[in-house]
């Protein structure tokens, strides 16, 4: 089977007037083809997995309407970074909690780009928090916290990408919180100001 016989069939009579000198007998050996076939099978058997979809584990913060204000953990503004997810995969962020009603936060706009995107901003903030810990301004227990606030125009993939950035950059404390009207206002102002 692993060879093909393409020699002219030697059974028929010589045709009229056909003068053939030599009978060419070509036998093609097909063993290498079969070898290649098996090699490919083996390659695919080892490299592909019966791919199971992977999951991300999410823990939402404990929400109880009866929880008193004092019992909630007080979050220090110096370790906090707030990220707002908006439409067209746009990400706004600012440092701190913006709990000072007098002062508007310094809202920056970016995206999920690999360079100069939200990842670099998170890495910068992380370095700053580590520096403060070394300098003694923060205790060892204070961890960098990111508050993720998606607005109504953001998509699910924005949320998943942001949660992914948390695990990519090893941010241990984060929370998904509803966006406030004040912050929606900030986004609108920024959009109006830059003509987006």
């Amino acid at each position, binding site marked *: 089977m692993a060879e093909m016989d393409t020699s002219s069939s030697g059974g028929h009579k010589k045709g009229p007037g056909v003068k053939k000198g030599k009978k060419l007998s070509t036998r093609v050996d097909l063993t290498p083809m079969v070898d290649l076939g098996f090699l490919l099978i083996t390659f695919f058997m080892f490299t592909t997995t*019966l*791919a199971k*979809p992977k*999951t991300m*584990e*999410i823990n*939402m913060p404990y929400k109880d309407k009866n929880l008193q204000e004092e019992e909630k953990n007080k979050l220090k503004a110096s370790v906090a970074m707030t990220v707002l997810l908006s439409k067209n995969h746009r990400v706004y962020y600012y440092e701190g909690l913006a709990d000072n009603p007098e002062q508007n936060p310094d809202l920056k706009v970016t995206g999920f780009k690999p360079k100069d995107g939200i990842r670099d901003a998170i890495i910068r903030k992380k370095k700053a928090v580590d520096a403060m810990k070394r300098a003694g301004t923060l205790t060892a227990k204070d961890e960098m916290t990111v508050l993720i606030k998606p*607005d109504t125009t953001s998509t699910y993939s924005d949320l*998943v990408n942001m949660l992914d950035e948390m695990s*990519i950059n090893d941010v241990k404390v984060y929370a998904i919180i509803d966006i406030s009207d004040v912050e929606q206002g900030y986004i609108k102002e920024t959009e109006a100001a830059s003509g987006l």
Partner: protein
Amino acid sequence: MTAMCDVAFLLLTFFMLATKFKPEEPVVVTTPSSISEIPLPDNDIMLLTVDKKGRIFFSIDNKIKRKELIESVNDDRKLGLTQQDINTFAIGSSIGIPFSQLKSFLSMPPDEQAEVNVTAPGVPVDTSVLSPDNELAQWIKSARYTNPKLRICIKADGDAAYPHVKKIISTLEGYKIFKFNLITNMKAAPPGTAAYEERNRMANAE
């Protein structure tokens, strides 16, 4: 030479038996990617599929639990399902229609059901579990009652608007469920980041 043919057929048979059939998905959903490597568990899963438009499809695995679930829902909501409807549900997959249409859906043959799923409105959901429109809340409550070990997995399309997913999360929070899984595609940790260092460190230490 015939031995080679035999080997080829043996391999074919192996793959035919070793791989499982893909579970019938009501809608095709492109999940976003993440670097998370935790594999999806095989059983005791409550699957909430959300497509691009925000329609929600509910499903749990295990035929016996499905039968218990539909019997419990039938009693609570007085749907008037026959034994045959109950059996159809037990062997079926996802549900993406309100309770009012459930009986007629279950009496259809599977190909008609697949057609309905293309345009189905999805299981109604609301932000509060106390709202009577929140049928997903009923499904979740009954399902957890039949199987307390159920793990809740959300498989949503990347382009689904956030408010739809928020309603599901609010419903879960209403039942004090704060731990759940989001199903994602696998992607590698980007080089130069903390996660990349962590994974390579563990790989080098081995």
